[in-house]
């Protein structure tokens, strides 16, 4: 049994998680230096932004239920020139995602097989997906679900291993204190401002849902947006502590895991009650 709105949330989740992995490096570098202890305010601001955008997307999605996102709405309301500007921006972001994801994938892949030449491996990965799409592979909800389950399982395993390690020594706790104390702070509004800009990176994927409206059943689109918002607003403030101690990333993933299960069950109930 496939629950359409659940599936799209999963796809977006996978996408969002990818961006999180990609941007961890950036965040660690900059957010730690810039956002300081006020970054939780920034993260709540992000949740607020997404709350607002959830309705903005839903309104457009219900009024003009066509694929294409920003291109679609601008094409219907303004000239073709402005609409194609939005389309070009979307294209640029697709291109950048593909390249960055492929090369990060290979950076991880080198842990599996270190003899691999990264340049050729990236091209091979891109070529492989080129071939798959040529053969007509669409984004399959089952594949998304599989990736999602493997990811959650691996992350839970990581959590358990880290907890075991933590129990074996007190080093980690002193490290946490050290990391907390080394953070420099600038003026408070500037901290919040930069923190906000950086934290917005973690919420991409929110906009992808509007590119799939035609594939979603009627009335499903607002639900996907709502679920996404739950995820982002619940998890992002939890991720705050990640910046001070990577140990807390573990807490985040434990939390995420439990929340996802709750959302799964909830969605299944909602879906069943709405169809029956």
């Amino acid at each position, binding site marked *: 049994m496939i629950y359409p709105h659940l599936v799209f949330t999963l796809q977006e989740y*996978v996408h969002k998680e*990818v961006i999180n992995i990609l941007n*961890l*490096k950036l965040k660690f570098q*900059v957010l730690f230096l*810039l956002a300081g202890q006020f970054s939780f305010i920034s993260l709540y*601001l992000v949740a607020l932004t997404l709350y*607002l*955008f959830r*309705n903005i997307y839903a309104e457009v999605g219900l*009024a003009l239920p066509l694929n*294409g*996102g*920003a*291109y679609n*709405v*601008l094409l219907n309301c*303004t*000239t*073709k*020139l402005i609409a*194609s*500007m*939005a389309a070009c*921006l979307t*294209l*640029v*972001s697709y*291109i950048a*995602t*593909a*390249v960055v*994801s492929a090369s*990060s994938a290979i*950076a*991880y892949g*080198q*842990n*599996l097989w270190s003899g691999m030449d990264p*340049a050729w491996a*990236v091209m091979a*990965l891109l070529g492989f997906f*080129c071939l798959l*799409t*040529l*053969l007509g592979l669409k*984004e399959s909800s089952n594949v998304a679900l599989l*990736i999602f389950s493997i990811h959650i399982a691996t992350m839970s*395993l*990581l959590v358990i*291993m880290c907890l*075991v390690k933590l129990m074996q020594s007190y080093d980690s706790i002193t490290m946490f204190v*050290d990391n907390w104390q080394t953070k420099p702070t600038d003026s408070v509004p500037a901290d919040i401002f*930069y923190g*906000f*800009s*950086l934290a917005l990176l973690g919420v*991409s994927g*929110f906009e992808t849902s509007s590119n799939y409206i035609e594939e979603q059943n009627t009335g499903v689109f607002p639900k996907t947006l709502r679920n996404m918002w739950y995820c982002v607003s619940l998890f992002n403030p939890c991720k705050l502590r990640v910046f001070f101690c*990577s140990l807390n990333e573990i807490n985040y993933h434990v939390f995420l895991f439990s929340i996802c299960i709750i959302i799964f069950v909830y969605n299944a109930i909602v879906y069943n009650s709405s169809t029956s």
Partner: protein
Amino acid sequence: MPLSIIRQHRDDLLAAMGSAAQSGSSLWLTKLISADALLVLSGSVLTSFVGVTGLIRRMSYDRCLPMFLSYTNPWRKTNHFIIIGFFLLTSCLYYIVRGNLESLASVYTMAFLSVMALFAVGNMILKYKRGTLRRAIYTPWPHVVAGFSLVFIGLIGEIIINFTYIRYFLLYFGVTFFIVMLMFSRNRVLKLLIYFGGPKCWKDMLSRHYKKIEDRPMLFFTRTDDPTVLNKAILYVRQNELTNSLKICHVYENERDIPPNLEGHVKFLDRQYPKLCIDLVSYSFFF
């Protein structure tokens, strides 16, 4: 994990965490996490392949990009030009930026924040111009404005933080937009080429192409015979489309449901716009 190590492992942080969490000498956890990350990131590559195919196909149907991009092969019914083109583009880009992926990551962020801001603008215009469209959710104006300003502030912050990378963003956006602009003004470009001349067969080919672009008709589906509505459609086509033929379509169930003045108004409007050939097409269709 101390921050110094975190900074060392910026590319594969989670895997480094895995190895830190292990007490033994075996590296199975690192391998498992790497395999998982490889899988998730590959999923993202697939998403962008599928997404880009959909968007370019739509743009090609709307004639923002060349028509040939939307051709499908008879074998698997996929848009091979888009897919192979995207592969070549991303591979070249990877080759060019090798080692400087942060520039691409920030290009991505800037692009996605601008898309969100434009979406909010689109929502405002939708409220203003198409207020009568039915929708179950209505976002209040202050919310839209607040959402737009927050994203805009975020965009500015991103640009300040990664100011060095904005030129990459402008470069990528500029190149893409240039192609679309070329597509919009393809008639003028062709005219210019014909003007500068060359061998006769070359000029003939250009003229044939030019004719082909202009002969492709646009369709407008109408329910009413209201001349203001028809005129608005004509003005839109004149301003946004490169064509000299517009077909106004009316779909009816019974012949007596056809608006009585439709034919007369279309004939009249046809005479008003000598550069645009306007035809009326009526279809009977049982819903």
